[in-house]
């Protein structure tokens, strides 16, 4: 039991916590929570030809399942999975190499990864347009080498979208992987080899399980933005295969605006992300539960 003096002290501390965090709370409530409530509200409204009508309907949701909206969702999901897997396969050896470098080299390598990371997103996408375009550098080089006789269309393909996604999000995978691998005690690998595991076995039995938190973190950091990608498909993809980010944006930006549809699509995307997070959280919990039982 706390004495009355201690209770008073507690109250004072609680009051100052309230005062300090209230501004952020109000801000986030108004500009983060409330907007989502409005989105939920709008998703159940009816769309007239030109504007929203304040009448309840499930039209928007019905359309998602009937009017070909599943295709963009599927495309975005595929893109996110591809991007995560490729980033993981490329990022793991890179992070491993960085983690095992000596301290001086480590900092340099980290800077090399961070520079593109801190370079403006749109510029990085733009640089790929120059590299990949019809009259661009890659086509020029390939023609000079005699590998192709006339320029090929690389830009404006789904392949280009994946390529640029990987390019942009690779550092998001490398950095969390690096931070777990850097903490990994490499004598454990010596121990595994001493006990009869060869390089490949000790990788799968020791390195990989111990890097699992970094793999989860990196995959989430790549998966979430990839699922909602707009800019990259817009700038390096084509208009025949639309990703869900583009569809949502068009519903908001193109006249006539279709707010109910945009809202319903947004909530469906949010639902997908939530499911994904729950799955990963469940796996993670399972992983932790095993250790703390």
């Amino acid at each position, binding site marked *: 039991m706390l004495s009355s003096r201690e209770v008073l002290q507690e109250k004072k501390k609680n009051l100052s916590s309230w005062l300090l965090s209230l501004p952020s709370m109000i801000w986030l409530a108004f500009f983060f929570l409330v907007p989502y409530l409005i989105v939920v509200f709008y998703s159940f409204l009816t769309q007239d030809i030109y504007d929203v009508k304040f009448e309840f309907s499930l039209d928007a949701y019905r359309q998602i399942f009937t009017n070909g909206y599943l295709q963009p969702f599927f495309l975005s999901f595929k893109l996110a999975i591809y991007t995560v897997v490729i980033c993981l396969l490329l990022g793991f050896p890179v992070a491993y190499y960085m983690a095992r470098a000596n301290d001086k080299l480590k900092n340099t390598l980290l800077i090399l990864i961070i520079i593109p990371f801190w370079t403006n997103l749109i510029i990085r996408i733009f640089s790929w347009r120059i590299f990949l375009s019809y009259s661009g550098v890659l086509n020029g080089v390939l023609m000079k080498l005699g590998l192709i006789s006339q320029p090929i269309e690389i830009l404006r393909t789904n392949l280009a979208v994946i390529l640029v996604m990987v390019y942009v999000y690779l550092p998001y995978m490398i950095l969390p992987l690096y931070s777990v691998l850097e903490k990994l*005690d490499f*004598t454990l690998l*010596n*121990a595994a080899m001493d*006990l009869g595991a060869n390089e490949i076995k000790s990788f799968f039995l020791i390195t990989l*399980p111990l890097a699992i938190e970094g793999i989860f973190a990196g995959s989430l950091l790549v998966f979430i933005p990839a699922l909602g990608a707009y800019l990259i498909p817009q700038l390096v993809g084509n208009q025949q295969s639309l990703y869900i980010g583009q569809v949502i944006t068009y519903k908001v930006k193109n006249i006539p605006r279709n707010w109910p549809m945009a809202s319903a699509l947004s909530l469906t995307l949010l639902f997908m992300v939530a499911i994904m997070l729950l799955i990963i959280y469940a796996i993670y919990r399972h992983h932790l539960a095993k250790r703390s039982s």
Partner: protein
Amino acid sequence: MENIILHNISKDFGTFRAVDGVNLTIKSGELFSFLGPSGCGKTTLLRMIAGFETPTEGSIYLGDKNISDLPPYKREVNTIFQNYSLFPHMTVFDNVAFGLKIKKRPKTEIKDRVHEMLKLVKMEDQANKYPDQISGGQKQRIAIARALINKPRVLLLDEPLAALDLKLRQHMLIELMDIHDAVGITFIYVTHDQGEAMSISDRLAVMNQGKIVQEGPPDDIYERPTSIFSAYFIGETNLITGDVYKVYDDYLELHCPDGTGKMLKLDSSFHKPVSEGTRITLSLRPEKIAISRFKPRPQDDINIIKGQIEDILYLGSHTQYIVRVGKLKFRVFSQHKRVYFDDKALDWEEEVWLFWHDTDTWLIEDNPLDILTDAELDDNGNLQRYVKRSKV
């Protein structure tokens, strides 16, 4: 018999030679230690036997098989790592089972063998815990079980007790010896702690600067050091340098300058031929010197010198006196604080007599490079400087 034979082993790291031409045979079933200061090459040597490093020159044999180029997972050698290196994401059971699972042994066999091993190290009831849930001493036991389950021919132990506190260390030392007796395989033990090495080993090798300075049973190295380095590194000692004045059948007469211009006349036994006029260094262990307020009765084979107490350190089991003789200093261990019939203990600045039997000194070196002006006292800087200049 499957001896470990190190044949002319050297290891370079860039321009640094960590191990320098080591030749050694470790007998099957032996508990052998490498003892030396940090950086002497003992751990590198161990890592080459384990397979984590490849020798720059020379070969390593296990029995008559050359294992120098085998990767660690193909050697019948297992290691206890300094920080145990237990896999943090596996239970105690899975850690111990690791080697058998790699070899794809049947489940029932794995279970039986793991329990058998856990029993050996008295950890049967901890099988389902994770490494971060058990104590340092328990981790140590698990590391041993994890290595021994593979039935290695040789077990390597890299400073296995360094992370434990003193009491536990002494306890684990005894347990390690018991386990060695129980499994009967070769143990190779690396440590910088001379107490550990002395108490646990059948034989040991003292190493310095990549070379083996001396090898042999602990008592041999303690009683009969062949170099100043091993005399200093194992136990503590007084070094006495002087010129041989006369050689008799079973002893020699020595003239030692005491630094003030006076000469100490001492007798000493000797175990190798020396000629008159050469300069030699002797080792005299502090516990072999007797100390007294009263002059002892002179005897032929007893050296008696007079000095003054400079320092007294009461250490419980014994007392250490630092006694000044001219400019030389002698370190003396006396098992109990000397109190005489007048009920007075020896005191600072008191004049005392030191005496020892002439067979208690041991001739280490002829023609030492330097005269030690005083027996350097527990001053590692000085010791290192001297050791570097001396012939290894």
